[in-house]
């Protein structure tokens, strides 16, 4: 919920604004409009009806304003380009065509401010608004400073904020001074500065700074959202008189911001189609979008439902959605649940926030947090709650403990376990509890990993020196490196003192701001190419240069002692195959196999192992080709014999093994020959009917098509050819 806003922009479009100054290659107007467009397009992006915008052109060739038409003097060459109102893309486009340098000059900036003020007064009446006038000018046209006091008084009376941003205005704070400033400009600048100084709420700045600051991401301000308002208890007040309850409020402290969502559209096939309006979920009713001469139309999702039916062709048939019941799956059993019973699997819970117990700080590690942070404070104006919560916060802080609590946001929601951390406000003078969600038993997967500081051998010995473990030298080099790369005092605060580098308030989400930037830019100038991301967004993608320079010696020594070697790409695939094909005992299985499987025939039921074993001992290509041929026959038979899709997965697995093995033997052509024939057989229905599902769902989707040159150096198949082959 944001307040209502009324902002009037006064844009100087005088003839002098068309010139370039101070070494810039863009005109003063274009330079200024960077700032103005960015501001206006931000308002458009918010698409809030209550954020209203008006635009006045100053030094326009025409004159169009109320004062002038009422016969006042000194209001010439000032035109209202857009009355105050909500901003849309359409109005943005119209505005864009109107903002161009005129061939006039001589309008009075102060008069323009009066016009703007009147517009605001008329529009906002006495309602609650935040009112603002933003004036951009190069101050090259004469200003009558007689009425500055009166105008300032009126601005203050109407509670209007005045922002004046001038092209090449002097700004000692920012560190800019125009050396060869004309006397006229100097006079005008000081007149404007005087006006600003008399206003209660005003800003006076130079355009260069304003434009520079555009790249600093603006963070969308969100009102705090109260997630919980109720008791925090220790014990059960309904059963035990001793139980403690504190009336608290809980708000979100962190909430993940998301990039603007995209809508799925397609280019409209024909422009005459007056069919019923359909849209995706995110598109409202207006599904036809014009953009750069192309018409788009929304995409709708249509769902169809199928069930297995042995009698139907392909083993499946469509069913009517209306005839379906809802349910859940329990393993592979489906459990239909009638509409009235639907909530039975939902645990009944009542809103509550109750402490389970306390744990010492030392037992907690931040990486067990499951998500976003909340903030817990006492209910306002509730002295008992304030005192009790404060006592809890201080007690937790003193004994270095956290509280673990069960939290149910409102009746019926899933319980959560929250860890409550005391913040006695020593640094930020804000006393509260922070909470983070903890995992439940089901959320923890027990993955086993070998220890990092020792190596266990097969015989159960413990080794502390091993190629997998760091030497004393390496540990030392690492320690020096980590210390050298310390960021705790590497940054600079507002007063030039050392401060933490990259604190959280300087970490901007690169994707969100990049997207917003690009969308705004595209809205103003649809034909301009997408710009590169602002530097500030990628600032923390690399360690700071100067720190690296400082730590050069430590880095060098770490690299030297680490002796990390990159494994050449070719060796990665086949690495270690030879040593792992023996069981733990090291028994020579190959010789056993040699005795029991002298024939080189592959049995369908044990196809994969036998195929691999033949290939592992094959001495010539002929043996391989014969094995591949047998494997191919097995695949074809599996497909042919398959009832519906029952044996497709098995056939696909055989294909996959065959393909991978032939690639590693550098014989992709053997596979290619087979799979080409297979495709033909499938598509002509030779393999026992319609087997297209095998083709699409298993061969194409499973990436079992032609072997491309990227996968095997000896293949001559291009990616395009492989893609073409995948199509029927």
């Amino acid at each position: 919920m944001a307040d209502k806003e009324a902002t009037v922009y006064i844009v100087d479009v005088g003839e002098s604004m068309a010139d370039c100054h101070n070494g810039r290659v863009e005109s003063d107007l274009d330079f200024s409009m960077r700032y103005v467009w960015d501001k206006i397009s931000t308002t458009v992006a918010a698409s809030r009806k209550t954020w209203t915008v008006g635009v006045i052109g100053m030094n326009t060739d025409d004159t169009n304003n109320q004062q002038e038409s009422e016969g006042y003097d000194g209001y010439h060459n000032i035109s209202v380009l857009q009355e105050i109102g909500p901003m849309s893309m359409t109005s943005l486009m119209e505005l864009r065509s109107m903002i161009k340098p005129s061939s006039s000059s001589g309008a009075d900036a102060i008069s323009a401010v009066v016009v703007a003020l009147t517009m605001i007064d008329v529009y906002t009446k006495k309602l609650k608004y935040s009112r603002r006038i933003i004036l951009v000018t190069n101050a090259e046209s004469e200003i009558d400073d007689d009425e500055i006091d009166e105008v300032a008084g009126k601005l203050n009376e109407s509670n209007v904020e005045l922002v004046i941003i001038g092209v090449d205005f002097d700004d000692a704070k920012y560190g800019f001074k125009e050396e060869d400033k004309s006397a006229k400009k100097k006079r005008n600048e000081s007149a404007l500065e005087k006006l600003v100084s008399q206003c209660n709420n005003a800003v006076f700045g130079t355009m260069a700074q304003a434009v520079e600051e555009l790249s600093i991401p603006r963070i969308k301000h969100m009102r705090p959202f109260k997630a919980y308002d109720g008791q925090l208890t220790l014990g059960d007040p309904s059963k035990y008189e001793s139980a403690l309850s504190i009336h608290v409020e809980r708000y979100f402290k962190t909430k993940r911001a998301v990039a603007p969502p995209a809508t799925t559209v397609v280019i409209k096939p024909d422009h005459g189609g007056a069919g019923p309006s359909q849209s995706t979920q995110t598109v409202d009713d207006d599904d036809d979008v014009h953009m750069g001469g192309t018409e788009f139309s929304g995409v709708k999702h249509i769902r169809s439902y199928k069930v297995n039916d042995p009698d139907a062709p392909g083993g499946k048939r469509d069913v009517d959605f209306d005839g379906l019941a809802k349910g859940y799956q329990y393993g592979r059993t489906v459990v239909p649940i009638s509409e009235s019973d639907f909530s039975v699997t939902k645990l009944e819970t009542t809103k509550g926030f109750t402490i389970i117990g306390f744990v010492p700080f030392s037992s907690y590690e931040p990486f067990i947090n499951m998500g976003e942070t909340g903030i817990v404070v006492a209910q306002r104006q509730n002295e008992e709650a304030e005192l009790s919560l404060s006592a809890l916060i201080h007690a937790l802080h003193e004994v270095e403990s956290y509280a673990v609590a069960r939290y149910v946001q409102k009746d019926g929601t899933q319980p959560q376990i929250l860890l409550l951390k005391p913040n006695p406000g020593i640094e930020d003078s804000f006393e509260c509890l922070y909470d983070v969600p903890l995992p439940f038993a089901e959320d923890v997967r027990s993955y086993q990993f070998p220890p990092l500081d020792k190596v266990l051998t097969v015989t159960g010995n413990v080794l502390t020196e091993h190629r997998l473990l760091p030497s004393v030298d390496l540990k030392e080099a690492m320690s020096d490196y980590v210390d050298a790369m310390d960021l705790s005092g590497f940054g600079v605060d507002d007063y030039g003192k050392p401060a933490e580098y990259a604190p959280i308030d300087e970490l901007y989400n690169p994707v969100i701001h990049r997207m917003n930037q690009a969308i705004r830019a595209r809205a103003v100038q649809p034909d301009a190419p997408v710009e590169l991301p602002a530097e500030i967004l990628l600032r923390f993608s690399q360690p700071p240069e100067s720190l690296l320079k400082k730590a050069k010696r430590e880095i060098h020594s770490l690299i030297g002692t680490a002796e990390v070697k990159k494994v050449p790409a070719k060796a990665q695939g086949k690495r270690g195959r030879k040593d792992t094909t023996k069981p733990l005992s090291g028994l020579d299985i190959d010789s056993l196999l040699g005795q029991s499987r002298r024939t080189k025939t592959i049995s369908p039921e044990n196809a994969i192992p036998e195929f691999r074993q033949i290939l592992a001992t094959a001495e010539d290509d002929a043996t391989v080709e014969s094995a591949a041929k047998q494997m191919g026959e097995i695949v074809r038979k599996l497909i042919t014999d398959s009832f519906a899709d029952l044996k497709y997965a098995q056939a696909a697995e055989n294909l996959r093994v065959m393909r991978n093995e032939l690639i590693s033997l550098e014989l992709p052509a053997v596979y290619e020959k087979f799979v080409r024939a297979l495709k033909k057989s499938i598509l002509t229905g030779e393999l026992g009917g319609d087997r297209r599902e095998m083709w699409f769902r298993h061969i194409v989707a499973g990436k079992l098509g032609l072997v491309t040159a990227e996968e095997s150096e000896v293949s001559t198949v291009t990616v395009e050819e492989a893609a073409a082959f995948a199509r029927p």
Partner: protein
Amino acid sequence: MAWKGDEERRGDADEAEEELDETDYKTQKDAVLFAIDVSGSMLQQPPASGQKQADTDSAVTAALKCAYRIMVQRIIAQPKDMMGILLFGTDKSKFRDEVGSRSSSGYPHCYLLTELDVPAAEDVKRLKAMVEEEDDSDGIFVPSEEPVLMSNVLFCANQVFTTNAANFGSRRLFIITDNDNPHGGNKDLKSSAAVRAKDLYDLGVLIELFPVSHKDKKFDLSKFYDDIIYRDPEADAGTSDEVKTSKSGDGLTLLNSLISNINSKQTPKRSYFSNLPFELAPGLTIGIKGYMPLHRQQPARTCYVWLGGEQAQLAQSEMSKVDSTTRTVEKSEIKKAYKFGGEYIYFKPEEAASLRDMGKKVLRVIGFKPRSMLPMWASVKKSIFIFPSEEHYVGSSRVFSALWQKLLNDEKIGLAWFIARENANPIMVAIIPSKNPDDEKSGTQALPAGLWLYPLPFADDVRSVELDAKVRRADHLTDKMREIVQNLQLPKACYDPLKYPNPSLQWHYKILQAMALEEEVPGSLDDPTIPKYRQIDKRVGGYMAELKEEVAEKARSLMATRALKREAAEADDEDRPVKRAKPAAAKKQSGSGMGNAQLKLATEQDTLKKMTVAELKDVLASRGLSTVGKKAELLEKLEQWLEDNA
């Protein structure tokens, strides 16, 4: 729920920021076949020891109970994964449709009790009856007189995997036996078993052995199983090949011992990413794999069921996209547009791709900070566990270990730029070390030792909470509260997640299980997340009563001082010459700054409705209430709130 994302959900939502989750990665499905040895010694009940919690389960019963628990567990945690149970050494033989009393089956003395598949309700029911009622109406648990051929057992397993779980990424055979030498000195039988084991290896099936030992008899792997078991080619460098023997004793039943051993291997280790370059410094890159040992499990989503046939059947949905003329659109035609000021901004596909491109996948260290610099509120999402991989960079493990030790010893954290895969959104992470699980001081013994990528919030994710929460000094109340805190520590002074199952999830599956098995629906749930109220009352009830009394007293005096101050301030206001009655300024004070007491007074005097809409909104907003609606509605909301909070 769980591993694979729900296609239903993914289909409809047009989310620009694709949530980077394991759903986007290879759908590595897992199939586990339990092979349980049914021999005389496996069926033997342990001798009665007279102890209270003595073992009463034979090894076979323990193994089946274990399988049953894991089956129920997997339905919740891994609903797409398969499981099966094969008994061997039984007098009866059964393989799929062929049933033979003696050796008529292709796999004599192998009894496929539960076909390898996603478990169905009947499977659970049958197994449950077997373990709970020891129901053996089919007479399965009779050992055969002649020994079973291990080569047959292994080939039988081979066939089960080949046909049922052909394209599963993870396939494992869990052998539970107490016989370390099934074929004695018979070399031929041993050889043919070794050959069948090699077949399984070539098929891609991993054999995990869970030996059972009776009394203190050692299970000697070298007699037979060393020829059967292979090293897992996917295992991390440095993994030991230790096989843990399950036994009863030391206060642990055989069942518990077995469950703990099997559970540690039960979840297939699925990586979230592999071969990610970890740029520790310019010129020093090592390889890492990423895992998600923590992942919020949610109850399954609903599905649509077709009731037209003999059995309820899942209706599979297919989605197609159509345009305004209901023409099906091809994937290649689809474009992305952005809503902007009521209209749409469109980017060409290559432009859209370039917008998302923030560089290659990488974990790049920016520098290091003391751990204390991580603000306690800086949390947005679960962390990712990383572990070194030697596959692309030899030496990764030792460098990783050195970093881990340094960060652990000096309580430091790394700061890094992290892109999990090509085109993923970059995030900033803190690199935090975890202690060894066997470290007694570790509060996270359920989690492995290594490094964690802890996502830091961006400035955009931080809500500015402008609340009035003045700092107070610690006082006597603090002392009282301290007694309470010190006397209510959780067991072992840490939060052990394994002790707290998710009540919603448990309830959901409990009910579902009862419905699926056509059992009686349970009336209540044992929920360990509910505090032990009686104990709290017993342990700190006295302290709390004292504290409450003191708080009440202090609050009264605080209230009195505040009232005085307020009166003084109001008097001040009145004294001031009303020069220009600027309504805005005066009202502002009475808006969000208006205290509950004032509001209550206003209600009593019925002057609330004199407030303007803007003021009402202020008051409501400052109390975190919705400010949507007309004046009458706003008034109603405020009155309701005042009533609730009286």
